[in-house]
């Protein structure tokens, strides 16, 4: 292996001098999360993994405990929840504390990097997807009648706005969530994920446990949303916040 290593050194250059716009190094403890949640933990639709980089510490801790207690991911129909539950069960309290701290740290670093990224944006490849394009892709992935974000019917958005009023009581009018009422931030989550979770609440495969009070509360709210169109409307509206 030594001969191999030497050759490798000819080609490898230390990152800081070259690709400062790229993703920051992940803490070792977070590498396992990155397999499904993506290299920067910002989610991956193909593994049905949400953005966890933006989640507040209290929420990550609460959800990992929910998985461990069979409050989440214990229903056969919740396939990705089951996958996450397996991981959660393998974690000790110490692990969880570690993960929570490291993600909080990553969160800070990312906020700084985003600012930095904007300043060097012109140096980044022209092929970077703009924010609008990204939303557009998400809208299409909902498989609704909506063709694109820009051509969104205004009545749909106003319906979404109307529906969001009851959400805003807990999640805030900015969609950033509130710890006091155990409501997580919504704005950074991909639309497919928000939609899936609303469906999960409705189907009784999330928020089903009587001791999971915030989950139960969310279930009753979700059951008040009457149609898939309404779900599309509200998750689309969340993207405009």
């Amino acid at each position, binding site marked *: *292996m030594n*001969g*191999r*290593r030497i*050759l*490798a050194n*000819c*080609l*490898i*250059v*230390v*990152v800081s001098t*070259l*690709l400062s716009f*790229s*993703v*920051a*190094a*992940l*803490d*070792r403890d977070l*590498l*396992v999360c*990155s*397999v*499904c*949640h*993506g*290299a*920067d933990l910002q*989610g*991956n*639709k*193909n*593994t049905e*993994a949400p953005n966890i980089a933006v989640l507040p510490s209290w929420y990550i801790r609460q959800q990992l405990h929910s998985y461990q207690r069979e409050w989440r991911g214990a229903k*056969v129909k919740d*396939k990705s929840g*089951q*996958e996450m539950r*397996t*991981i959660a*069960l*393998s974690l000790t309290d110490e692990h969880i504390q570690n993960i929570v701290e490291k993600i909080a740290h990553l969160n800070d670093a990312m906020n700084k990097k985003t600012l930095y990224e904007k300043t060097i944006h012109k140096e*980044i*490849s022209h*092929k*970077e*997807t703009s924010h609008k*394009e990204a939303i557009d*892709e998400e809208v299409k992935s909902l498989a609704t009648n909506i063709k694109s974000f820009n051509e969104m019917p205004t009545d749909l958005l106003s319906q979404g706005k109307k529906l969001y009023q009851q959400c805003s009581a807990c999640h805030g009018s900015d969609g950033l969530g509130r710890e006091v009422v155990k409501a997580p931030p919504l704005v950074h989550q991909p639309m497919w994920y928000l939609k899936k979770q609303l469906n999960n609440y409705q189907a009784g495969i999330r928020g089903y446990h009587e001791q999971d009070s915030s989950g139960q509360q969310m279930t009753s709210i979700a059951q008040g949303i009457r149609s898939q169109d309404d779900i599309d409307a509200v998750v689309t509206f969340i993207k405009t916040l």
Partner: protein
Amino acid sequence: MNQSISRRSLLTVLGAVGGASAVYEAAGALGMVTPVLPPQSLMLQPANPNKNTVAILGAGISGLMVAYELERAGYQCVILEASHRAGGRNLTLRHNDLVDELGHRRRCQFSPDSKMYFNAGPARIPGHHQRVLHYCKAFQIPLQIRANSSRLAYVHDEVSSNSKKSRKVRIGEYIADARGLLSELAWKSADRVSLDEPFTEEELESLSGFIRMYGDLTEKGNYQGSDRAGSTKDRMLFHSAPKAPLSTQDLLSSHFWHYQLHATEIYDWGAPLMEIVGGMDGLVKAFMKRIHSPIILNAMVQDIRLRENGTDIVYQDQNKQSTLKVDYCFNSIPAHLITGLRNNFPRDYRQALGTLKRGHLFKIGLEMKERFWEREGIYGGITYTSSDVGQLWYPSHDIHSQKGVMLGAYVWGEEKCAKFERLSPQARLQRAKECGNAIHDNYAQYIEAGESVPWARMNHMMGCGSQMSPEDRKRYFDRIQQPEGHHFLIGDQVSYHSGWQEGAMASAEHALLSFDRQFGRREHS
């Protein structure tokens, strides 16, 4: 053959009468079966010394093949592998090997005996997988026949519609009775169906002869059981006495009838198949021995940046982040994980990658303290069951030795795999024992150790046999097969044969040849 009946329509008739195997037999006689191509060597043009660096992402079969071939053409390669080992899904588990399942990381419990191994990934090679066989031959990897079917193995139905009891029948018995039933039907209808004029008397007689022989019918066209399924008396000392045929209801109510009975008709599963002596990872070891390029293990790719004249790869190895700046990149990372990496791929390329979905496949290997199946006359082959474990495979190597590793479950598809994926490794073994006990007496008592491998839960892979809907395939397959700049996607995922090593090698070959056409150094350029 009369002019007015096409070969195709004759095959349709035969298909209705004799099932798939009759069609295959006839098609062969008519010279319509695809020829098996001889193995080929890739003759890539020598690398341009000023532009010869390559990053290969993933040390599975496609990545190893690309590294081997490019190295021979003079390229400088670096292979990044996210997991702790090379080989990808070509995984042979032995004593104390790490089973890196997310949430259930553990060591293989098999005893330290070189014969106690379990091919958790690829396990069989048909004679027409010319690319795999080419490397086996070139690297002098010893192969042996792997019996993929045995007429003495069983068909097991948990509940048959009549008796409400489970039923176990030898495969040979089932096949004989199923063919008998079909032939009887064909014989009876042959009188009434006036076949088109083009058949001569002679040809019709030939067809009747085929029907009779196919089902082992009496001269009058009746099926009364067949000694093809064995005999109730010692066939050496007495006239054979066939068992009474299974009832039509029994045949029709079996899961085996419309699906697994035909498994060995599938081109990739037709006897004889082969396996690598000592474990399928012999192929990985042979590549590793010949590849001199650095293979960096535990290196997780985080960012792929296409440049006009190359690619930058950011990866992390424990706490250290590094960047490879290379001229070309061959990427075998599962597409469903690439979509979670940072990249600057154009939107349509990223969209195309997003259409490749995770596949599910599950296997359990069981170390058995006695080869009890051999006492039942089973030497290799597969028992098919309607229960959760799906199939039991018996080893055809090391016959008559004391112990053996058999496959205690072989399941694919999301729903069926989920039944095992959600369980702990111990609970999976428990389920395998319950299912096996219904088929073989004292099955569970023979088990000394067991390992389960749910590919959709294996770290850094999270899937096996990637799926693409027919519409997406039509629209996006060409897109992912073509390079994006200097970036080539490879692996079984970029083939019509995902889940097979031959698919992985075909994709690697396709990428290498198109790379060579596009970037290879021309003699006079």
